[in-house]
C-alpha cells in the first residue's frame, strides 16, 4: 500500500489508443460514453494482442464506466481475446457454405501443420488458431479464412501453406 503518487489505471493506454478512443467518443452523445467501448477495446487489442484485466480496467477508467461493464462486453464478443494468443490470428469459417465446400479439410490441415487444436496458439507464439463462431460473410469464396485482417478465399491446403509461409 505504500508508494508515491499512485498511478492512474488509464496510464497503461498509449497515446495512439487514447486518440482512437477520443475519436470514437466524439461520435456519440456526451452522456453515452459507453458506446465507445467496442471501438476502444478493438483499438487496445490491436495494439496489445489481447485484453488483459489491467487493460480493460484502463479502458473502464478512461471512458468512465464500471470495470465489470467492460468485462461483460469483452467476454461477450468472440472477437475479443482475454488470454494471450499467437501473433497471427487465423480464423477459418466453418459455417454452412464453407463447410459444404470443405472447410473441415482446411481445419484438419492447419491443425496438423501447426500441431495445435482450434482455440490454441503455437508454442513459438506465432500462430493462433481461433475458433470462429460466426459466418465471416464470404460465402462466394468458400472455403475461406481470415488471417489477421485479411480474407483469403477458395482455399486449398497448398494455398494455406503458401499464405502461412508468407507471414513473418
Amino acid at each position: 500500500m505504500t508508494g508515491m503518487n499512485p498511478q492512474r489505471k488509464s496510464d497503461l493506454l498509449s497515446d495512439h489508443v487514447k486518440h482512437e478512443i477520443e475519436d470514437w467518443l466524439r461520435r456519440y452523445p456526451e452522456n453515452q460514453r459507453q458506446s465507445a467501448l467496442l471501438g476502444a477495446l478493438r483499438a487496445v487489442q490491436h495494439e496489445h494482442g489481447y485484453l488483459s484485466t489491467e487493460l480493460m480496467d484502463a479502458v473502464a477508467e478512461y471512458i468512465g464506466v464500471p470495470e465489470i461493464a467492460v468485462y461483460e462486453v469483452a467476454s461477450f464478443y468472440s472477437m475479443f481475446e482475454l488470454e494471450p494468443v499467437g501473433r497471427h490470428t487465423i480464423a477459418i469459417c466453418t459455417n454452412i457454405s464453407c463447410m459444404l465446400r470443405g472447410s473441415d479439410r482446411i481445419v484438419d490441415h492447419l491443425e496438423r501443420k501447426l500441431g495445435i487444436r482450434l482455440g490454441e496458439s503455437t508454442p513459438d507464439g506465432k500462430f493462433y488458431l481461433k475458433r470462429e463462431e460466426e459466418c465471416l460473410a464470404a460465402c462466394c469464396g468458400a472455403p475461406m479464412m481470415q488471417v489477421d485482417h485479411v480474407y483469403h478465399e477458395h482455399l486449398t491446403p497448398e494455398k494455406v501453406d503458401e499464405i502461412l509461409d508468407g507471414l513473418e
Partner: protein
Amino acid sequence: MSQDLVNIEINGVTLTARKGAMVIEAADAAGIRIPRFCYHKKLSIAANCRMCLVEVEKAPKALPACATPVSEGMKVFTRSPKALAAQKGTMEFLLINHPLDCPICDQGGECELQDVAMGYGNDVSRYVEAKRVVPDPDLGPFIATEMTRCIHCTRCVRFGEEIAGLREMGATGRGENVRIGTYVEKTVASELSGNVIDLCPVGALTARPSRYTARPWELIQHAGIAPHDCVGSNIYLHTRNGRVMRVVPRDNESVNETWISDRDRFSYAGLDADDRLLRPQVRDGEQWQDLDWDQALTRTAEALKRYAPDDIGVLVSPTATLEELYLAQKLARGLGVANIDHRLRQNDFEDDAAAPLFPWLGCAIEDLERQDAVLLVGSDIRREQPLLAHRLRKAVLRGGVVMAVNPRDFGFHFPLAEQVVTDPYGMLKTLGGMLRAALDVEVKPAPSALIGVLADCESQPLHAEMVERLRAREHALILLGPSAFAHPQFTILRALASALAQMTGAAFGYLPEAGNSAGAWLAGAVPHRVPAGRAVERRGLDARAMLAQPRKAYLLIGVEPVFDCADPAQAIRALAQAECVIALTPFAGETLREQAHVLLPVAAFAETSGTFVNLEGRWQGFKGAGRAPGEARPGWKVLRVLGNLLDLPGFEHVSSEQVRDELKGQLSDDIRFDNAVVPKRDLHMPPAPSGLTRVATVPMYAGDMLQRRVPAFEAAAGAVYAAAYVNASEAERQGLAGCEQVFVRQGEATAELPLVIDPSVPDACVWIPAGLEQTRTLGANGATVELQKTV
C-alpha cells in the same frame, strides 16, 4: 375516473391501475399472484426470466407481465391454458441447468425457485442430458456463492448498479456460458451488499455467516430494530431455541425501505463472542470471583453509597435502550450524581446549553431523497449511515447536488458537486468563508457572537459558489456528521453551520453516530438536562471532563472506554486511578477487565426489550428476541433493582414499557423540533495548528461493542487497516518517504503503526482511525501528533 387511471380486467376481476403501471404491479396490488424471478419492485425491469408470462386478449403470444404496461380495457388471464403452458415451459427451461440440490441448499424451504416450481412446473424433468457447472467466485465474508444454481435473473447485478451505487457484479460470457459474478476475484465492497442474499430468488447467493446453521422452518421470526446507526432500520431477528441465527430486513418505506446495511445484518454474530459475560463477577486482587446476583447488586449498591455523589461518574453508551438511559440517569440523579453523559466521542461541550432537544435530522428520512442541495459537514455518510447515503444518492440521481466539507476524502457512491477536504481547522475556515459569502450576498451583518471568528476567515470564490448552490434551491439542507461532533471546536463549527443555514434558507440537521443518540438526549443522559430536555439545577461533568478530572468511582453502562471514548489515553489514565469501576456490560474484554472492579452481565442487543429513537425522532419499540446467555439480565431490570436497593423512590416498573411511558409522560405533546443554535458568548478562532493534526474517525465496523466482536467484519471490504495514513507530499515533508513503520506520539500517548500513503488525507493531517485495537492507546481527534521513523 381520473385521467391517470385505466380500467383493466385480470382473470375476470375488474381493476383500476395507474397509467403506465405494468400488469404485474396491478396484479400485485390486487393480490393476484403471478410467478416471477427477475422482477422486483425496487429494481428496474429486465424481463429476462420470462416466468411472468400471461395471456393478454388480442395479443398473439403470451406477454411478460412485468414489462407489459396496462391499457384501457385490457383483459389479462394469468391462469388460462395459454398462460399456464407458457409458465410451465419457462419453468422447464429454467430448471434445465439448475442442479435441484435442494436438500443441501441453504435456501431450501424459503426458495422462490422451489415455490414456483411446485406451483407452476412439472413433477418430473424430461431433461436427461448433462447440466452445466459454474465455478463459485469468492465475494467475501458475507455472501456464500453456489453459482451452478443461478438462473441469471440479474437482480443482484441491477441491485449493484441501481441501489448500492457500485456496479461490482455482472453477467459475463454469453449463451450457455453466461455467468454472474465479478469476473475478477474480489470482495464486494458495497456496505449494502448483503441485500443481494434476500434478492437472489434461488440458492446461488446465501448468507455466509449463517450458512448451514438452521433451516428456515426451524426459525421463529421476531420484529426488531437495528442498533448500529441512528436510522433504526426495521429488521426481523430469526431465532432458534432462543439463539439469534440471522437477521433480515423488515419493510418500512419511511425508514429503510426493504434494505438493511451489512453491519445491521451480520452484527448478531458478535453475540456469541468468547468474552460474553455470563455471571456477575468482582475483582479479588488479580482474580475474578463469581457472585450471585443478590451479592453482586448489594456490593454494587454499597459501593455507590460509599462515595460522595460528585466523586462518581456515569458513562452510558448511546447504543443503550431508551429505558436503560432513562433509568441510568434516574439512578444517578437519585443518588445526587450529576455527572452523567452518553456523548463519549465528543470533545467540545461548550455550547451545551444552546443544543437542541435532541440531534434531529432536520427533516424526515424520506425527505432526504427530495433535497435539491445538501452540504455534509464532517460526514462519511456512506459508512456511517449507509441507508441515508442511499437516500442522498437518490436525490443526486434526481438532479440534486451534494457537497462536503470533510477532514478526509471519505469516498461517496454518488458524485459530489463540490468537496473541501481539509484539516479540522480548515473546516472552520471553510464554513466561515461560506458564511461570509452568504452575508455578502444577503448584505447582512455578521451574527455578533461570530464576528471574532469571521474576522479570521476569508470568502473564496469556491465558498461563494457553494453558498449559491444552497441558496438557489428550494429544499436545501446542511448536515453535521460524527466528524463534526468529534471536532475539537464543535461549538464554533456548529454556530457557523447554523448561521449559514439561516442565511441561505437551508434546513439544518444532524447525523449523530449511534443507534440511540437521540433517545439519550430525550432520556436526560446528559449532564446539563434532565429528561425531556429540561435544564438541571446543578450541571454535572460531561463525558470528557469526567475523565479529564478523574473521579473515584465510575459506573459504565455498555461502554468500553478505550474504544468508545474520544480520548482513550485519558480514559485509561482516569480509570487506572479510580477506586471502584462498576460495569454493566454484555461483554468483558481484556481491557475492560483491567479497568473494572465489578462486572454485571446485561443482555445485549436482541436480548432485551426497549426503545430506540432514531434521528427523525421516531420511537421504535422492540421485544427481546434471543435469550441472554448465562445469568445476564436486561439492563433496565438491573438498574431498577439497583434503584430499589439504594432505597430510591420511583423504581417500581415491572416492564420496559412502563419505563418508556414514564419518560413519555414528561415530554410535552407539542414538541417543536428546532436545531438552530445561537451561541451564548462571543466565539473566536482557535490558534492555527502547527505540525500534524490527528484525524480520528471511527471505521464502519468499530462503532460499538457488538460490531467489534463480529468475525466476518474483520475480513469485510469495509474493515479499516490500523495504520497512520498520510498523503504523499506530507510524507515527503515529514521526511517519511519510503518509510513503512512509524512511531506515533500524541501528547504522552504513543503507538507504533504501519505508515500508509493515502491521497484521501489532507495536508498537515494524519488519519489514524479510532476504535481499533492497535490505536486504542492514543488520544483524541483534532489533536497534534508527531510521526517519527522507527529505528
